[in-house]
């Protein structure tokens, strides 16, 4: 009898939960409401199947409990019943599949008249590129990446000179305009996922994948990486701000073009370098320790190492930790930082200067 009670509670609870669950879809902010509809259809069809089958089980357990001397009905086959059940199931499957395929067809048909943005992932930051005035991206090549040219754009390609580079985690988009994201990755797999937009697509190094949507609600939304990409996966957060067209244009005009970034001096660019190399994914500037220790108010202080020794955080220690991170690991941190052995002296100095400015 215990089973009947518990199973009944579970079945009723499972169904009612859908009405009372404190966790439900985030408020929709894009054109992909149809995807929510397909989920709701699935919930109804599957809910009916679940209640029917488990209700049948519970009924049988109540009705056909063991009675000494009673014998079960002997019925090895019942072709008619089996055919009916197969047909009913097939209908259920079609009801689920049809809207699913229609929605998928919409999802993968890229619009022609859309705003184009390139999303570039790397461990563990997001950056973006707009094609600029000419509307054409400059050619990129995986071999051209450097700490200076973090998008791997061919410097000799005239189309690339006016490309607008967004070297921070936040990108703006105009409201009610279709956007196509061309996605690529510098290192490993990532996944560009904005819960409120419902859209999601993997970034695969060495190839391009596409994603499109139309933001329908002003506001700032979080980009979460949804494909495991190493130790800092959970910290790979980006932001999308949906603006009016005017605000968007104003914002875009402030962003540097590729040509401008090529001619930037290194000095004073420590923050920018830390941003584009992805340092900031692990080392915060606000005093909160992440995968790695924060940079806030650390310069000149002492750090306890995992060996039990302490070390003063000075220029030499910072340099060593960039070039050969595993040499001295801070206590409580995992030795996961890659070695940045190819940075130039000037770049390391710029980062060091930046860290110094974070100490007051």
């Amino acid at each position: 009898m215990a089973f009947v009670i518990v199973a009944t509670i579970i079945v009723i609870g499972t169904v009612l939960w859908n009405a009372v669950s404190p966790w439900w879809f985030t408020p929709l902010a894009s054109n992909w409401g149809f995807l929510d509809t397909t989920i709701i259809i699935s919930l109804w069809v599957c809910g009916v199947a679940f209640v029917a089958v488990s209700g049948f089980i519970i009924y049988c357990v109540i009705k056909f409990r063991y009675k000494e001397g009673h014998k079960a009905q002997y019925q090895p086959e019942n072709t008619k019943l089996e055919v009916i059940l197969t047909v009913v199931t097939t209908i259920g499957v079609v009801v689920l599949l049809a809207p699913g395929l229609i929605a998928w067809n919409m999802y993968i048909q890229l619009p022609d008249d859309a705003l184009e943005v390139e999303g570039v992932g790397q461990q563990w930051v997001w950056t973006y590129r707009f094609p600029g005035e000419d509307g054409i991206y400059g050619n990129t090549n995986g071999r051209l990446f450097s700490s200076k040219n973090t998008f791997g754009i061919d410097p000799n390609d005239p189309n690339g000179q006016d490309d607008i580079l967004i070297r921070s985690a936040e990108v703006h988009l105009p409201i009610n305009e279709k956007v196509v994201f061309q996605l690529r990755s510098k290192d490993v797999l990532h996944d560009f996922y904005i819960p409120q937009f419902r859209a999601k697509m993997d970034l695969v190094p060495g190839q391009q994948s596409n994603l499109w949507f139309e933001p329908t609600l002003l506001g700032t939304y979080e980009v979460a990486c949804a494909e495991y990409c190493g130790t800092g996966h959970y910290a790979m957060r980006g932001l999308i701000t949906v603006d009016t067209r005017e605000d968007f244009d104003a914002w875009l005009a402030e962003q540097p073009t590729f040509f401008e970034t090529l001619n930037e001096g290194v000095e004073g660019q420590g923050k920018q370098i830390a941003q584009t190399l992805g340092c900031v994914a692990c080392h915060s500037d606000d005093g909160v320790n992440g995968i790695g220790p924060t940079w806030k108010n650390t310069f000149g202080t002492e750090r306890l190492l995992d060996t039990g020794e302490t070390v003063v955080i000075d220029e030499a220690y910072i340099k060593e930790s960039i070039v050969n991170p595993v040499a001295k690991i801070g206590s409580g941190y995992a030795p996961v930082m890659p070695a940045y052995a190819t940075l130039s002296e000037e770049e390391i100095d710029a980062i060091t200067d930046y860290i110094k400015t974070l100490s007051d």
Partner: protein
Amino acid sequence: MEQGANYEGQPIHEPTGWWSRYVFSQDHKIIALQYISVALAIGLTGMFLSLMMRMQLGFPGLFESIDAGSYYQDVTMHGMIMVIYLLTALFLGGFGNYLIPLMLGSRDMAFPFVNMLSFWVYFLSVIILVSSFFVESGPTGAGWTLYPPQSILEGTPGGDGAGIILMLASLAVFIIAFTMGGLNYITTVLQSRAKGMTLMRMPLIIWCIFLATFLGLLAFPALLVGAIMLIFDRVLETSFFMPEIFKGGEVLDYGGGSPVLFQHLFWFFGHPEVYIIALPAFGIISELISCHARKNIFGYNMMVWALIAIAGIAFIVWAHHMYVAGMNPYLGFFFATTTLIIAIPTAIKVYNWVITLWDANIKMTVPMLYCLAFLITFLIGGLTGLFLGNVAVDVPLSDTYFVVGHFHMVMAVSPVLALYGGLYHWYPSVTGRMLDDTLGQIHFWITFVGTYLIYFPMHYIGFLGVPRRYYSNDQYDFIPQSVNDLNQFITICALIVGAAQFILLYNFVVSLYKGKEAGPNPWGACTLEWQALESPPGHGNWGEKLPVVYRWPYDYGLPGATADFVPQNVPDEQIT
């Protein structure tokens, strides 16, 4: 070729001493127990890892030793251990070895020596796996899917150390062990059936194990190829899967490869793997539900054809794991359709189980409780699979906690419930004693209700969009505090369920000495393993003469018989 051991009139390989009887034994029953013990031991490790993971999610910062790196190592090793080294090994190596010869009425496996070798090679693969915990940068933390490029690069725990190499090597060794065992199961099922045991008279669990083995034999080579190529990429720096990569401020030596190629190879193995685990669980349920409901299984023929259909279609659904992986999006139409088609034979199996309950004579024994619980969790897990298989519906849900909830329901909770049901059911056959019923009930209720409370709410934080494989949710504004509270609740449930598993272990040990004497056929089952002369069956299983089979294995409640069951080896004229 090693000669088959089960010929009438020929002496079977009689063990001569303690070593050949219990360690390097060629007796399928001992080998089964060896498989079960090693699998349960490594499975306990896997459970411990999952609890570590839960501690971090429920009570972040409570254990300082769980940093992001070790969290991901726990996630990875938990997944790999549970899927491959626990469930695959236990269902096929354990249940397969024990049940195939006994249920088919043969003396042993077709090639006992190869069978023994299979276990020891499996043992070696476990040793290699465990050794990765003790190398410098620890085991791999690449996620159980081991996707390159991250799996073999620094930035992933164990990626630049020996961890990933040991993982891949262990898998390769496991595949060799599986192939040796698998060839044996196939040969035994096809060749060593007792007289009268036609294919369509085989118990459904044998069909299930047979087809699962077949799936494994055809699917594991894909993983082997992937693993070998990945080892090449890692050790020799070739570029099978590795494109141009910019990392640590420099361009690496790799170039031109395709990470998606690995995903195809992995999931060509990975999806059938789901059925390698699910089919034996289906089999156990089919046996148990018929026996404990004292009623013939409904629609045997349909069940067999449904199984064959599932096994066949299982090979053309793999890319439903890759809808948003950057493959050609038009493939989505094909794979969504095949995936939803596979739901039809699966649903037929569920219908046939529940119809078996209709007008039955249901004994609420512990194995029956597990069956009923399996039906409910499998329903949930199967139905949520329809969401994820349906390409567009998958887009918002993939890589969220909905996926975690779904696959744990369908390929963790359900198979484990079936597994436990099977252990309670066949323990008397192995030891001659019954497991304690009260302990069994307590263990059942905690496990069933506990796991439901753990995994059911996960679907809803999946709707919310919480991504899986997150060490911490703190940074995200769209994830409310209530998710952390829920995580705390789930962790507490997980700790209770984890602790409850020791009730089973305790029950195992105590019942070995103090359990009620089972007698030859305590459940009144029709299948042959309960009809041996000795209980538990001795070496060679059947004494002088092999059994002869006269009927299908589900003659429960046969009209005209006094008893409510007629064993398979009873001819019509002996029915009283």
